[in-house]
């Protein structure tokens, strides 16, 4: 009551009006949010190195196995025995729907033989199904954040997700190349021999991955190539299991995601 304006009738009246709003539940204190409360640059300044070759096996349902084994490839088909061994020994397994369409094999004509996935998941292979809704956006863990209208220093988001069609041919198979050594006999052995129900991606030893390279200015992921797939799986891992366990790159990715959340 020290303020001399308090004597002013209009002043008291304006206060009474506000009180009515208060009685109706309207908050009386507003907290200003500046647009970036925590510019944690260090969070974005991270990269990680893949110390040893990493192989990622993807099936038609978007399941993925990650390990260090090798899988022989011939004309877009993979040796069934290698695939089975790889799955048995995989270090990480991701459920159905984890991997977006664009990374999955085109079709599955050899069918059948691979339904041995029961080895590690109790037969139903169904445990993926979780948030598969996002199958071909980048699986839901970005926040979109939109407003690309004004801020030049945020840059806009016109290039989201899946405009990578042109690339896909490039990464198929890749390694294991040396063994096109004509043992066609294998090819003939039908059911057990070769399968096209998978696609294999290989990230070579000492590859440096900088997740921030796959982000656009509005915080959407634009994941491409095998490194993009790796980030996607790391993100999925993080989403599901948190920042524990040994999936390389997680802490780097987490710091970026935390950063984006503050935007």
């Amino acid at each position: 009551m020290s303020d001399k304006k308090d004597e002013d009738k209009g002043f008291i009246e304006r206060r009474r009006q506000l009180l009515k709003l208060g009685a109706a539940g309207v908050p009386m204190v507003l907290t200003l949010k500046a647009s970036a409360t925590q510019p944690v640059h260090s969070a974005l300044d991270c990269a990680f190195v893949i110390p040893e070759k990493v192989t990622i096996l993807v099936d038609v349902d978007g399941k993925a196995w990650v390990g260090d084994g090798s899988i022989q490839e011939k004309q877009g088909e993979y040796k069934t025995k290698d695939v089975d061994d790889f799955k048995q020994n995989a270090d990480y397994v991701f459920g159905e729907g984890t991997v977006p369409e664009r990374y999955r094999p085109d079709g599955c004509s050899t069918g059948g033989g691979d339904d041995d996935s029961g080895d590690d998941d109790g037969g139903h292979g169904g445990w993926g199904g979780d948030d598969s809704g996002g199958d071909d956006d980048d699986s839901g863990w970005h926040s979109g954040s939109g407003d690309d209208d004004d801020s030049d220093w945020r840059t806009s988001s016109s290039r989201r997700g899946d405009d990578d069609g042109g690339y896909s041919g490039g990464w198929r198979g890749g390694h294991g190349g040396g063994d096109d050594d004509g043992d066609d006999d294998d090819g003939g052995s039908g059911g057990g021999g070769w399968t096209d129900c998978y696609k294999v991606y290989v990230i070579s030893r000492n590859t440096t991955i900088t997740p921030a390279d796959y982000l656009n200015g509005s915080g959407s992921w634009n994941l491409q190539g095998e490194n993009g797939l790796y980030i996607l799986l790391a993100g999925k891992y993080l989403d599901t299991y948190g920042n524990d366990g040994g999936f390389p790159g997680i802490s780097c990715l987490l710091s970026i995601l935390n950063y984006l959340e503050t935007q």
Partner: protein
Amino acid sequence: MTVVIMKDLPEASVFNALSEKRLALKLGPFATRLNIGDELTQRFILDMYQEAQVEIGNELLCDFSMTVRPPNLYRRFFRKQIVPDPGFNFPAVPLPSALSPLALEMGLNLNVALQCFRFAIFHAGVVAKGSEALIISAKSGGGKSTLTAALMEDGFRLLSDEFAILDIQDATLKAYPRPVSLKNQAIDVVKAFAGSENVSATFTDTPKGNIAYRRIRASDVAAAGQPASASIILFPEFVEGAAPQITQIDLADAAMQLIASSPNYQVIGEPAFTALMVMLDGVQAFEIKYGNTEDSLEIVHDLLHREPS
């Protein structure tokens, strides 16, 4: 080596210094070490920044460093793209190399927006006549840059078309007169009054449509050391064919919008609060609506000659 105007240097030495990370751009309160391997961007700098002060050497201390480079071998192999690297790997849109100068400009903006804390930064254009500054809020996409560029031809000096840079010691506004970025229709509008020789080539198919830049001016660079004090805050709105309209708005509302547009206000804390409050002293805020550039200039003239209400 001492500070010189870039155009006084032989082209070759600028090119070399840019590729060898030995050139510091000294503009307004910031020194930025440039590391530009990309020829298109080098040419862009040589042209658009020809009036800027630079220093060449290995031992320069700088506020920021800025790299324009293809992002990695992998991507270089598939499609040549450019990512700006303002001293840290900020996630930015990788751009095709034909748009690399945009990456430069974007990166320089990011530097200020995210790495500067010794000034309070607000997202707005600023021009001044004498020591009286006009803050043009970037809100609502109302043609901030067009209006800024138009005022430049109308006897105002440019402080910045992107940031209001508030000195937290004395609450004055600092100049950082970089090229003005023009989008879409604004390009031809500005060419018409500023002369097309002062506007860069147009970059098409950018994430924001067509973009071109208005070259920096010697007069703005020379005056950059002189601070200015805020006098009017404008919230412009361009509406095709609209009759000119001026509405004074509550200063508190204007202040809230400025704070919300700041990338570092919260980080700086008390000095930013205090400086902003001092800056607001005697300032008036207006929403203005207009349908063409002539009207917008007239409105600004009216406002500047208006008696404080």
